[in-house]
């Protein structure tokens, strides 16, 4: 049985995730704090934290359409950036004091250009060019990019970032990782104490609230959840996805009899990965090494495919996964080819795989529902 306190905490995480401007951001801003939006995983949030600001991973939560974006992005742009760009144009991201873009994909890259063109008045805009290959020279490039970002943050916001503050941000970030690892451990139980949708809400919350508050809240939740397991059951599924930030999507799968026990996704396991080296002689070197070579890799990174497949295969074994759902946002070429390659690997391993194509705003009806049902029935045999 779940405790009332656990239920309250999970509800709280869910509410934080269900909106862009959550109460924690409101409090932070009231105290004069700055909030800097980050687009995609390879923008190191630790740099923003070290500068005394709150990193906010940009999402399109609450978006009802992309009518304002389409003028700029055309109709071939992935719906994730199209939706958050729409929200930004509607003023829903006006609380951001800055946005750091990355060249992680063609769509994000061009949004940086269009952010200017659409006249969105975010006071600080920056583009970090993170490498697409694994090599020492690439790591050095990345480190220089981090220096450039740090310099611009210091210059624009009039702050000074010391090595000690960078170290502190890394320690805090590692603490979040350790807690999230414990959360994921709970999902290995035969009957986990929380669903995939609930886990996703907890994970997304880590990208939009002060880390210290988040860590305290997650620590409390973990103390309320029984490590031996809970009552949730269903076909044990792993979700492989990029910008999956809406727990509703997982609820829909779980309502059909699946149970998401593991993931490889940008708002999930990819946020965790291994710890960043602490007390390194160069925190920036440690950060660049972490994001380029140690973190759970992104399909965009050339040469990282075997590592990624190994992570997924190990996760399948550890979490006793019975089937994998590949969640793909239309027009994302990187993940389209990755899902194709993953399918071949899983076929060799005898793991059922279903690829779902969708748009960012969930409209999970009819055909898709039938496909998931059929997939679950196929696994049940």
């Amino acid at each position, binding site marked *: 049985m779940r405790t009332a306190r656990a239920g309250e905490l999970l509800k709280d995480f869910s509410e934080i995730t269900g909106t862009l401007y959550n109460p924690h951001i409101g409090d932070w801003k009231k105290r004069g704090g700055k909030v800097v939006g980050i687009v995609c995983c390879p923008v190191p949030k630790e740099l923003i934290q070290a500068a005394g600001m709150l990193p906010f991973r940009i999402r399109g939560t609450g978006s009802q359409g992309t009518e304002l974006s389409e003028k700029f992005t055309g109709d071939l742009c992935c719906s994730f950036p199209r939706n958050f760009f729409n929200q930004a144009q509607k003023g829903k991201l006006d609380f951001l004091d800055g946005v750091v873009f990355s060249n992680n994909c063609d769509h994000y890259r061009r949004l940086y250009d269009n952010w200017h063109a659409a006249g969105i008045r975010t006071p600080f805009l920056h583009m970090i060019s993170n490498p697409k290959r694994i090599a020492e020279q*690439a790591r050095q490039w990345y480190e220089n990019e981090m220096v450039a970002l740090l310099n611009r943050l210091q210059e624009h916001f009039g702050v000074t970032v010391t090595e000690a503050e960078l170290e502190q941000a890394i320690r805090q970030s590692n603490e979040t990782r350790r807690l999230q690892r414990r959360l994921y451990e709970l999902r290995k139980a035969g009957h986990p104490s929380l669903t995939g949708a609930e886990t996703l809400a907890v994970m997304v919350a880590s990208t939009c609230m002060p880390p210290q508050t988040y860590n305290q809240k997650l620590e409390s939740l973990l103390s309320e959840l029984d490590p031996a397991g809970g009552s949730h059951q269903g076909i044990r599924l792993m979700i492989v996805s990029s910008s999956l930030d809406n727990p509703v999507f997982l609820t829909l799968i779980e309502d059909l009899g699946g149970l998401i026990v593991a993931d490889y996704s940008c708002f999930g396991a990819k946020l965790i990965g291994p710890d960043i080296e602490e007390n390194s002689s160069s925190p920036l070197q440690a950060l660049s090494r972490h994001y380029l070579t140690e973190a759970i890799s992104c399909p965009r990174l050339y040469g990282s495919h075997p590592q990624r497949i190994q992570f997924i295969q190990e996760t399948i074994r550890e979490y006793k996964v019975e089937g994998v759902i590949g969640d793909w946002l239309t027009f994302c070429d990187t993940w389209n080819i990755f899902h194709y390659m993953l399918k071949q690997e899983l076929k060799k391993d005898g793991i059922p795989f279903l690829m779902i194509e969708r748009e960012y705003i969930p409209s999970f009806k009819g055909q898709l529902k039938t496909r998931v049902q059929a997939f679950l029935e196929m696994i049940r045999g």
Partner: protein
Amino acid sequence: MSEQDSASEKSVIEELFGSITALIESQDPYDRLMLEAYQMSLARTSRVKRALEEQKPTAAMGGNCIPEILVAMDIEPFQFLEFPFQDAILYGGMEGLRDMVDKSVEMFGPHMCSFVRLACYAVEARLAPFPTVVIGMSSICDSGSAAQQLVSNHPDWKNRPSYSIESPARRDEKSYEYIAFQLKELVAFLEKITGQKLDLDKLKEVCEISNEQLQLWWEYNELRRAIPCPSDWKFASMVNQMARYWGIGKPESTAWLKKAVAVLGEKVKAGKGLEGIKEKIRFFWFDFPPIIWGDRLFRSLAEEYGAVMVMDLYSDNPPHTMIDTSNEKAMWMGLAKRATYDFGMPRIALGSADLYRQDTIRVVKDFSMDAVIWPGHKGHKDAGALVNIVAEQCRELGVPLLNLGCDLLDDRVVPVGEMKKKIIDFFQITGLA
């Protein structure tokens, strides 16, 4: 080959390139040069095929960014998709190509760039010949990068040597230094794999020939400013091939380019435009030309409406880097810049919105364009997200822009007739026709 096969092959070639028979029979110097270019192109194809058969050093490229280095090292470059594409058309006609496209859709769905999708299919279907090395550019576009991952992890390919060049999303000295470092690393890699050493004097010589070829290309393009425009897009494609792809560093290509400039110069002096065309509308095709269906569209627009495609993105020659061969460092920096900034897809895909604006202004003004047609190729997603910025720029210039929407490979996605209708409607609405 049977008579029927031969007839089918001829019709496909004529569909793609127009009447070869007419070229053969023509005494017009412009036509003779075009014929010569086709012959040189065929000779080069045979040379690469022979190198593949004899297992001489070859490099399959996912982008065409470093031909100078390969030429200097005596490594035959070819495009990854080149031979599966050619074979499908030559042996199966247009239906053969369409069949390949359909199969690639079965694998990857319809939303990915059809060219990249086809390359992935060629690997999966074991249609692509094995080169000595694979060289890609991991940052030109998402689909190209992902395709490289597919190739380098495919069971048939994963043990084959491959190298991926990465270009940052910014253009400054630091970026060029980063790319130059990779080019040198690539050379070390190629030396190890092929056993062929790079002779810096040879590289210098190739760069100097290449500089001259680019200058000739630039002179040729200057002549295309003339009204009426003296050259068509197919001829322009050949100039591009000579100066930027298989003709690089080859004296015979330089000789051809010199003749092209001379012949075009004579046409301009005589006030001659395209044969049989009364030019009324000049337009800029803001992407690379659609080789499969381009002739059908552009020929009929020219013949019926006097609408001439004066410039496209791939035959555009922006102010480019002349490689400084006076010292080694300058040479590598020049190669880095040329590889990623100067031309074609690397320039435009990696360029900022400002670069798009500048190119729009330059081409529209220099070539007296009446209109800009933005093809809106389904695969070019990054460019697709800049159409509004370019449209705003065109508005400032007082030139209308049409966002067409098409697939540059597969004319079943948007039929040529439908495209033509959209373009004609656009010309009529804007008062151009």
